Each structure stands twice: as C-alpha cells, then as structure tokens.
C-alpha cells in the first residue's frame, strides 16, 4: 500500500548579527576557542539581565516579509523552562503566544510540476541559541560561545509531501536568508538546523498517522535521506499491520538510518510564561515599512524579470538567480550594456553562466573576487559582435581577463587575436587549402556538403584560429563553385 507522507518542518536559522541576542558579546562562534565569546549575561550569572538586540529583530522582520508573513506589531518574549548544561539560565528566552511573524508562505519548484508549489509558514519567531556540549569519555564539556546567539525558528504547516519537496523547501529557505544577508545559511556550520515532523496518511481512510519527529539534520543531503528513510521505515511497519509510536528520532549520517532518540513528552513541560525582564516589544509600523522598502529584490521577482524583460529561459534564469551576488554581477553587466550595443541580456547570460561559472569552478574563487569589470565584459562581447575576434579567441581573451582583469582590446592586440576578415587574404589561403586537399574537394564537389567544415577547419589551422569562420567558408564556396 502507498501511504501519503505529511511533513511539517521547523528550521532554526542562526542570524548573522555582530552581537548576541541579549548581550554585547560577539555572535561569531564558529572556530573560536571555547568560552571566549562570553560575558556575565550569556553565562547566566546571578543578577544579569537581557537587552534585546534590535538588529536581530530587524533581520527577523526582513525574513518574515520575505516569507510573506504578517509582522506582528505587539511582541512578547517568553521563557521556555528546562534544565540542560548548555542552557545557562535554565530557561531559553523565546517567543510563545505572540511571535514576530505569522501566516506566510514559500513557493518551491518541484520536479513533478511546472507550477511552483506553495508551502505555508505558520510562524517565525526569535529566540536565543544554546551552548554546545562536547562529549569526551565519560564527561561533557560545555562551550557557551554559541549561547545567546540570535536564532530564528521558522515553522511550516504540514504541507510537504516528499523528501524532494522538503529538500526544495530548505534550499529555498537558504537562498532567501542569503539573499537577505541575515544568515550564512551554512547547514554544515550549524547556521541552519532542521527538524522534521512526519506522519503517513492511509490513502483509504484519509486518517493521519502518528507524528514522528526527526532531529539532527545537519546537511541538505541528510534532510532528503532521513525523510526518505523514515517514509520507508514507517511504510514497512504499517504494511505489516504495526503501529508508529510518537517519538523523537535522530539521524545517523554515517549509517544512513534514523534511530530512537527519546519518547515524546510533549511541550507541556516547558512552563512558558512572559519574560518579565523584557517589556513587550511594540514595533513602530513606520519601521516595518522602512524595512520593507529596503528589502532586496527576491529570487521569485528576479526570475519573473529575467524570463520576462530579459527573455531568458526558465533554466537560464534559474542558474543566475540562485546566488544573489551572481545575479547582481549579471545585472550590472546588463545595465552597462544598455539597449543600444547589441549586447543582449541573453548574450551576457551565456558568458556569465558559461565561461565565468566554468572558471569560477576551476579556480575555486568567489564571484566577489572576480576582477572583470562589467564594462570590460561588455567590450569583449562587442568585439565578438563586430567580428574583431571570433568565439574561440574570445574565450581565450576571457581567460586572461579572469586572471588579470585587463581590458579585452589590450589582450587581443597583445596576443594578436584579431580575426582575419580581409577577403583577399582569406581567398588566397582558401586557394592553398583547396590545392593541398584534393580528395575532400572531390567529395564536396560530389555533393558531400559537410566536408566544407573540414576545409574551414584547415583554414583555421593555418591561421591559428584567427580567420573569420563565416568569411573563410564564403571564400571556399566561391572558389569551389567557380
């Protein structure tokens, strides 16, 4: 029997503010010596008090707006009480009844359908992260550098129905937070952490099965694999007439299996109540409006513009939009090109997602380090358009530009890559090629049209790639037909 998976996701996003959520300590904890980015406040020392980091609130509002959420003007922080050595105060300051963002959605692309699928976002709220425990032999070491780092929790409705959709959702989420610049979104560094609530629905009765929570999903791959594994596991149990317990499972990346972490006790034990150390946070609507106005153009809007105004295909647009800095570079080139010069958005797209991506990939460099000024890439394309150089030469020039950032004209001259477009010169070379290759010439004359490519190739060889291929072919045809 085929069951329908019903999946809801909770994603924790570490916000990349300079300081922590409630104190002035640096929020940068990755690769830092243990317990060095700490102070009395984030160590939970007696007598200390929290003060809200306004930047974190701003980042949350930005994300909420990007997720099409309603931003709540009246906000209350709450204490979530539980004991654990990585939680210095014995409670986490979070939001409970009144979160910052409510009722949004994200549209994701799926393999099954051409139209995007909508995943509803139930809420997004701001809280503080816990510290980190390292288990050594029989002991646990506590590092509180991460304790108090602002954390955004984004909760979806149970709108996800497959591992691929979950994968597409978290990928989209990462793209959004990166576009907004509110988080690195690096799952491998713990800047994004996923929890999945999954149950299987019986297609005949339509009844929802028991919800199982899967934690420790620390990479995109593990999100997909863990869900796929858990669907299979539960299907097997149910097919044999078994029942699913309400439990929390962990994901073992190495063995690629889920394992029982703990039996569910529910959130009844957290004793949430409004944080008395922080007055309610009432947001000025003008501030929310200001943040809204300042939002960058988001991927969905970019896609629409690229496929519309720029006449790119869905596929072409997708690769450019993927990363905000790539898209920005692309757009700066398009902007310099303007309308007049015959350097179309499509041509620019070919160069950016072709040669540029290839060289970035080979060199391991980042788009931010690319030294090719937009105007110079435009100039290169113009050289091709004007037949000053041919395509292979242009690639060669681009390679030099990528390394040095130098203007293309200079490189063309230095390497002597100007195309041979002088017809007399090409005719005399063509004559020599025809004389040197009597057999192919015979074949052509007998009607084997494709042989012309071989002969053009010979002209390119003799000119070391500099001949204008169209003019070379024209010269050959004229000589062969006369």
């Amino acid at each position, binding site marked *: 029997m085929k069951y329908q998976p019903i999946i809801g996701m909770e994603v924790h996003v570490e916000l990349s503010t300079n300081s922590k959520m409630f104190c002035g300590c640096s929020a940068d904890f990755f690769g830092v010596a243990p317990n060095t980015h700490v102070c009395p406040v984030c160590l939970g020392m007696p007598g200390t008090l929290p003060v809200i980091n306004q930047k974190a609130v701003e980042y949350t509002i930005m994300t909420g707006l990007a997720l099409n959420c309603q931003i709540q003007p009246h906000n209350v922080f709450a204490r979530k*009480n539980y004991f654990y050595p990585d939680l210095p105060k014995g409670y986490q300051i979070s939001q409970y009844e009144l979160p910052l963002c409510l009722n949004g959605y994200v549209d994701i692309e799926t393999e099954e359908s051409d139209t995007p699928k909508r995943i509803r976002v139930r809420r997004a709220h701001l809280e503080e992260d816990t510290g980190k425990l390292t288990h050594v032999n029989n002991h646990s070491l506590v590092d509180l550098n991460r304790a108090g780092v602002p954390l955004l929790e984004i909760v979806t409705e149970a709108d996800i129905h497959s591992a691929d959709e979950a994968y597409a959702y978290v990928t989209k989420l990462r793209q959004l937070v990166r576009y907004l610049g509110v988080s690195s979104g690096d799952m491998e560094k713990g800047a994004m952490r996923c929890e999945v609530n999954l149950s299987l629905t019986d297609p005949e009765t339509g009844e929802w099965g028991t919800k199982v929570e899967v934690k420790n999903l620390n990479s995109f791959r593990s999100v997909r694999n863990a869900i796929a594994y858990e669907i299979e596991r539960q299907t097997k149990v149910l097919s044999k007439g078994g029942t699913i317990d309400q439990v929390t499972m962990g994901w073992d990346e190495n063995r690629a299996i889920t394992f029982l972490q703990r039996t569910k006790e529910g959130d009844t034990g957290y004793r949430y109540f409004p944080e*008395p150390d922080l007055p309610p946070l009432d947001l000025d609507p003008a501030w929310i409006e200001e943040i809204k106005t300042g939002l960058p153009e988001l991927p969905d809007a970019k896609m629409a513009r690229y496929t519309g105004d720029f006449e790119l295909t869905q596929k072409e647009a997708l690769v450019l939009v993927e990363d905000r800095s790539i898209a920005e570079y692309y757009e700066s080139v398009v902007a310099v090109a303007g309308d007049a010069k015959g350097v179309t958005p499509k041509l620019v797209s070919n160069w950016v997602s072709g040669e540029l991506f290839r060289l970035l990939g080979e060199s391991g460099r980042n788009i931010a380090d690319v030294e090719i000024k937009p105007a110079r890439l435009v100039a290169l394309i113009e050289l091709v358009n004007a037949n000053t150089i041919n395509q292979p030469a242009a690639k060669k020039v681009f390679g030099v530009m990528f390394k040095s950032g130098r203007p293309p004209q200079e490189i063309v001259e230095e390497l002597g890559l100007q195309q041979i477009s002088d017809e007399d010169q090409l005719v005399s070379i063509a004559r020599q090629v025809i004389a040197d290759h009597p057999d192919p010439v015979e074949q052509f004359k007998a009607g084997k049209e494709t042989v012309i490519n071989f002969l053009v190739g010979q002209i390119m060889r003799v000119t070391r790639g500099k001949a204008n291929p169209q003019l070379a072919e024209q010269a050959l045809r004229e000589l062969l037909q006369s």
Partner: protein
Amino acid sequence: MELYTLTIHQAQEKLRYGETTSVELTESVLERIAQVEDKVGAYISVQEDLALQMARFADERRATGEDNPLLGIPLGIKDAIITGGVPTTAGSRILEGYIPPFDAATVARLRQAGAVFIGKTNTDEFTMGGSTEYSAYCLTRNPWDLTRVPGGSSGGSAAAVAADEALGALGTDTGGSIRQPASFCSVVGLKPTYGRVSRYGAIAHGSSLDQIGPLAKDVEDAAILLGGIAGHDPLDATSLNAPVPDYVVEMKRGDGLKGLKVGVPTEYFVEGMEPGVKTAIRAAIDKLADLGAEVVDVSLPHTQYGIAVYYMIVTAEASANLSRYDGVRYGLRQDGVDMWDTFRQTRETGFGPEVKRRIMLGTYALSAGYYDAYYLKAQQVRTLLRRDFEQAFEQVDVMVAPTVPGVAFEIGEKGDDPLQMYLIDVLTVMLNLAGVCGISVPCGFSEGMPVGLQIIGPALGESGILRAAYQYEQVTAWHKQKPGIG
C-alpha cells in the same frame, strides 16, 4: 559623640569641613561592628581591609577638591546585590564562595560616588522571607529586642543601620523586604517605583517586582541614597528613562504639608491589626493633618486579593529565576552519578526549605493545565490592583497606612508556619504589584517595639513621599530614638 552614630548628611558636613576623614568614620563603624555584631548579626561578611582602602581613596579624592553627598560614607550592601570581587551569596549555600566578576549598576554608581562598602548584610535566602531567619549563614537579631527578628528580607541592612553598624544601606524589596524590616527596626526604608533604580546586579527573585532601595537613619539620608542609585540604565530593559530630581531639594519644598492631599485606604486597616500599631498610625495621620495636609478616605477595592496574586506571581518568576543554579558554572556543585543527578544533588543541598517550597509553588502555577487558572488569572487581577492605585492617585497625592499590621515577632515564632509569614506582607506587596513607590518611617512604638508609617506615592512620585516623610520627621522624634544595645 561617636562618629558611627552620625547620619549621612551629618557625616558629610564633618567631612566637608575637615572635622573628620572617611578613614576615621570607617574605623569608627568597624569598631562599632566589633562591639555589637556578635549580638546583632547584621552582616554575612565584613570586608574590613577593603573598606579602609576605599575610605583612604575617598579621602584622597576629597583632597583633590572632589565633593558629593556619598563620598567617603560607609555603607552596608545587602548580600543579594552583586559586588564585584566580593563574595555575594544571596544568603544561600548554593552561592557559597561565589565571587562575581562585575558590579550591580547601583553598586557601580555608589563606587563612582566614592562610597565605602563595609560588608554584605544578611538576607533571607534569595530574599525569600520576612524575618531574615531563612538565611543560610547567620541569625540576625532585632537591635531593639535581641529575642526578636529584624524583619526581612533586608533584615541585615535594617539591623545594621538601626545598630549604627553602617551609616546607611542598600536593600531589595520584592514584596516589602525594605519597608517591613525598616518598620521593625525603626529606620527609614524606601522602595522606589519599579524601574526607577536599575535591577542589573540585583539577584533576581520576582523580576517584575524587585527593586533596590535605601535603608537609612532618617529621611534626608534616604533621599541622598536614592539620588545616588536612581536613573536609567541601558542594561536593564525595564528601567525607566526619566530624569532624576534632586530629592533632597524636592523634599524640603513647601510650607509644611499645605496643599498635600493624603488618602487613607480603608482596606489597609485590616482585621487583626495590633491595637498599638493602629494607635501609632492614627496619631501619625493626625500629625500630617496638623502639618496642613488634607486627609481623606480612599478605597483600594481589590486589596483582599493582593497576597494571593503576589505569591502566585512571585513564586512563578522565582521558579524560573532560580533555575540557573545548577552547579555547572559557579557556586556549589554536588557531584552525582550522572548529569541529572548532579543537578538534583546540587539543588537539594544548596537550597533551603523556603526556597524549595517557593520553587515548587511557582513550578506548579506555571504548569500546563494550571497556567490559565493560576498565573494568568493572577496577572489579570494584578491589572485590577494597578488600576485601584491609578484611580486612588487621581484623588490624592500620597496615601498612608501601616507598613506592617504588627511589630517584630519572636525569633522562631513564625518559622514553622509559612502562611503566617506570608501574611505579614499584606500591606506591602500591593505597591510592588502596582509598581508604585513607598517609604516606611518610624512613627512610634507598640509595646516597646517600633512601628512604621508607610507613605505611598504614584509611579515616579518619590519626591512626594519623601516630602511627606521629611515634614513628618521634622515634627517628631521617633527616628532619634536608639535601641539600647552594646
């Protein structure tokens, strides 16, 4: 005359005119401590060397021409307030040996002003109590009768000031912990408006109720100390961003109490009030009228719910505030067989019975299924109580009532009956719930034990209550009477 008997403003005058030095003043106070401390037990710890060092530094500062009302003045600091580099226990075993790495905002301000810190005064464990008997360290006795309690939880501060073991002191007040011991020990105690004084560095008990305030020998000293600690603090999100007036100037304004409208909340003259207390309070109210105040009856109709609401909220907040004492980072650690057992053993050993009782009460009130009926309901009634005060202050400038319905009781008398102990707070907790300010001033004796008059003001109405208290003090001599110890 011994220097230790001076008030802050008297001492200040002598220091200013070079008649004495901070070192002499501090030595005098330390000698007094040596004389009477074994009887009174006001301090958990005394930092003699540090105090003398601070006194020398204050004298050096004065020699350069510096002057301010607290420069060189020896003070006691309640041990529930964080003092950088000096052990701070909150009266609890769980913080034994803990030396904090920073100052409370109030302590930092006093340090900046050049005050001298004598020692850390005794308190009920985590300020939870009304007799200072719940301290894990020592027993504090009432200087007026050593068989009686000094009140609490700032009993150490009140006793120290009453016994001349400090010129003034800081206390904390969550439900009456400054005013009640002030009443029991015949000193002045002021609970500021919630947010008037930074809570940063006050070891949290009930976060929405806690305030740090002064205990002093007279009203002027209380005004000086309040001026020294009040003001906005960016490290406390609940602190108020309002200018701090010169309280000493403000309280001396006006001709007697002409033009002042004084309300007497009828509900505060509760059943079971000691007759001697009632007599003293009535006489004090007559004195205010003599000074020109217009006295009218007012009503605070939700008063009867005060104690229930208070204990619901304060224990809920405390149950979370005390979760940080887990033995992982500081203070006591009692190793168990595993992590959970270590938590359990540490808290089992470190906390006393009253603290455990309150953690259990608060945890229960916040539990799922009970939250709406207890904590949420209490918050709703708290809003009503707050409104009572707002409406009353539309009619009057200040209100007066007893601070406590009785006088200091015998040591051990109520220790076994927590409910009796809770009921002592009946007239003080309302102010904390409403967030308003109040002061207790000595107003007589009942059967030989001091009685305090509570003067209540609206939010940020400190100048008004200080004025009423100061004028009252000018025409009475209760504050000049000293207990006969040592």
